[in-house]
């Protein structure tokens, strides 16, 4: 029926205070990379966590989440553990917080292989050493004996990547994997992640604040706002012809070096959570193109030619939305 590796339909996540993720649908094919972009609090991490059934206890997940043939919300016990251990791998934002500080790197890398995969300790060690080498961690044998505090952030994130690769998953979830790192290692880690993913043909869900980075590393890019997906498109297409005013806003607000504009290029207002949004389009209060219909009625996600946009005025605005601040200055 469907042969997508990841197929999410109508995903909603509710907290006691209200809805956090609202009717999100997307898919990822085997070997494909999808970037997810959006402001802080837009629900990117929650969406990624729903794919591996790691949402916090107080949250209610509804909708259909299928990953590698599994109905994720329905997984329990041993099946859930095997799914997490073999089908998906997650790379977290801050490796220093996300790797047990009092266990050695070797323990960290080998543990699930030995305990859950029943591999022999020495075999697991050899395997892990080989992968460390591939992700650019030199002197692996010594690293295995070291503790997290003895490694730099960049090195530690490579260890995290190695731990995911060692599990041989079909899908990698990377939640802002470079945000906590210093600028020099950001590029390195990103390059290694992309290279290893391509080499091994793994699918990737890549979360970032940086639309440009997402577009550069992923086949397709999805844009989230207030717990909803507002646009999903082919990365190059999205960059050339943003279909949603919010996407355009993200691109325009990018700081550029040769810009000497006096006006701060920001979309006015603050981002809202899904449950704070009115009945209409969540972005309407901040949108320069909003009309009365936008405030009243929620825009349907409309698909055309592999591009999904949820905007009442998508058809009129198509092709006219600015992609750089210079264009805004000219028009304004």
């Amino acid at each position, binding site marked *: 029926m469907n042969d997508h590796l990841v197929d999410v339909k109508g995903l909603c996540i509710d907290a006691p205070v209200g809805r956090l993720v609202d009717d999100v649908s997307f898919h990822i094919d085997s070997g494909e990379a999808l970037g997810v972009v959006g402001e802080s609090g837009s629900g990117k991490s929650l969406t990624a966590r729903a794919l*591996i059934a790691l949402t916090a206890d107080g949250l209610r997940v509804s909708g259909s989440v299928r990953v590698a043939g599994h109905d994720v919300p329905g997984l329990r016990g041993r099946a859930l*553990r095997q799914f997490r251990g073999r089908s998906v791998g997650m790379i*977290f934002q801050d490796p220093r*917080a*996300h790797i*047990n500080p009092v266990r050695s790197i070797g323990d960290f890398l080998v543990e*699930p292989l030995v305990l859950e995969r029943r591999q022999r300790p020495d075999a697991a060690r050899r395997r892990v050493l080989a992968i460390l080498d591939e992700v650019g961690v030199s002197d692996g044998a010594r690293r295995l004996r070291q503790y997290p505090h003895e490694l730099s952030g960049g090195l530690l994130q490579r260890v995290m990547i190695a731990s995911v690769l060692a*599990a041989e998953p079909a899908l990698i979830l990377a939640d802002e994997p470079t945000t906590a790192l210093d600028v020099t290692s950001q590029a390195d880690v990103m390059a290694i992640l992309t290279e290893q993913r391509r080499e091994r043909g793994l699918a990737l869900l890549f979360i970032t604040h940086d639309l440009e980075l997402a577009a550069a590393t992923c086949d397709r890019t999805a844009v989230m706002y207030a717990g909803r997906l507002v646009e999903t498109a082919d990365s190059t297409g999205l960059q050339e012809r943003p279909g949603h005013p919010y996407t355009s806003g993200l691109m325009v607000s990018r700081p550029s070096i040769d810009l000497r504009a006096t006006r701060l290029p920001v979309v006015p207002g603050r981002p809202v959570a899904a449950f704070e949004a009115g009945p209409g389009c969540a972005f309407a209060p901040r949108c320069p193109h909003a009309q009365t219909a936008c405030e009243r009625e929620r825009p349907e996600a409309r698909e055309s030619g592999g591009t999904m946009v949820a905007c009442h005025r998508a058809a009129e605005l198509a092709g006219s939305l600015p992609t750089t601040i210079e264009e805004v200055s000219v028009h304004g």
Partner: protein
Amino acid sequence: MNPWLKFVSKRLAGLVVVFFAASFLVFSLLYLAPGSPISFLLGNRSGTPEQIAAIRAQYHLDDPFLTRYAAWLGGILHGDLGQSIVYRQDVAALIGARIPTTAALVGYASVIILIVGVAIGLLAALRPGWVDATLRGGMTVALSTPPFVVGVLLILVFALSLGWFPVFGAGRGFADTVWHLTLPALALAGGGAAFLGRITRAATRGELARDHVETARARGLGESRVITRHVVRNALIPVVTVAGLTVASLVAGAVVVESVFAVDGLGSLLVRAILQRDFVVVQALVLLLVVTFIVINTIVDVIYLLVDPRIKA
């Protein structure tokens, strides 16, 4: 230099300094004490000047302060703790005879504290809801009840009413000693177990909320493995320190509990010696308690270093 060697030698040096400072403090404080032991020795008799002079000479009461301190300290370093005026016996022998009793009591209480404290702390942390609420209430009560009060309550209930345990004494032989020391050890351990329980609970709760636990789950580790290998194992690191300090404080707590149960250990000896103004015994015992206290503390520091890889020597 090897950082380990450096750390240990530094700690040992600190220990020696504190030993001398504490010994000087103890000696000089008791030297200042008014009321001489002579009146005790003579009892109600008034004593001839010759008798008094003889006693003063025997116990070196006329030597200058520093001479006496040096003599005392020198004696201690040779294992000679002086003569008890009341018992007319070597203090070393008096103390030596009672060390096993006190050590057994403190050891027994330590075992109870470690097992019960860690167990209830973990249980409270891992079973939120009524189990946690009940245990926390119990811990607050146990923490607030002084050991001697617990002791008296235990005597009233388990010794007098139910008759399960003896009221007084330390017993002979292993089984009999355990039987005799059970109530005293429980009284001594109550507060410490509650304290350790609280610390264990807080540490475990804190660790449960840490990000690396999420990583372990995300990698498909079973929940019981996540708890034992990542939550509990990490949480026990701070618990080790607190456990050590709690055990060190038992040395002082034993003084009171031994008196409650009339266990003839170092504590009751100290209380009797104070009442009888037997200063030689008091000096030796206080010094022994202080040294034990700081030695345990030092050992705890070293253990902490061993169990937490984040701390460099």
